């Protein structure tokens, strides 16, 4: 069992086109490090100055991690993590 991570279209070049990949870790921060080790370059697209970028949304089991502790949010096997770029503009 692993953590399923759903990858948005714009980041699929990092995952060889895969819509979902498996990852591991006990927090979202560790999970992103694990993703980076298998899909180099993806971390830079997700994080800035040590936190999740303003216009990137990360959800653990449908909860936006902004409201659950950010990168310290706990994850475990069987969880589903969804990454979605904000739909926003001016």
């Amino acid at each position, binding site marked *: 069992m692993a953590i399923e991570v759903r990858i948005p*279209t714009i980041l699929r070049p990092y995952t060889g086109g895969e819509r979902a990949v498996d990852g591991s870790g006990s927090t979202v921060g560790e999970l992103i490090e694990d993703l980076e080790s298998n899909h180099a370059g993806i971390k830079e697209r997700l994080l800035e100055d040590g936190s999740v970028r303003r216009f990137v*949304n990360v959800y653990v089991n449908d909860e*936006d991690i902004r409201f659950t502790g950010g990168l310290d949010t706990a994850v475990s096997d069987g969880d589903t993590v969804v990454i979605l770029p904000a739909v926003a503009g001016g």
Partner: protein
Amino acid sequence: MLTIDRATRDAIIEHARRDHPDEACGVVAGPIGSDLPLRHVPMVNAAMSPTFYEFDSTDLLRLYQEMDERDEEPVVVYHSHTATEAYPSRTDVNLASEPNAHYVLVSTRDEVTGGAPESGPVDFRSFRIVDGEVSEEEVTVVERYDDEATSPTQKAAD
């Protein structure tokens, strides 16, 4: 080129007029790979601003889960400009994250607040935004899509 049916185009313009002077936003979903904007989903502008729009993060997740379940993608991503022309701003370009989508811009700058009958014309333009590059494309408005293209799904206009 964006091909869109008249009812959906009109519904987007109506949404932009209704939310003026705030920016309106939404998507038109369609079957993956079809390039057919079939299902209009007006979204709430969580920023409630005349100069910025952003889908609420919970609404965004629900929208993408729903599209996943239906094997859809966002064929059109639209928003309005309320004081400037219907052309992507620098912010729009920087934040564009759907390289396969048609980015539709509607300008309500000539709008009379409240959507009065004498309200001015509304610009409706479409763009591709890929890797920071903007290219405008032609918009073709059809009364309805070819039956064989949409079969067996009927257009779901709001």
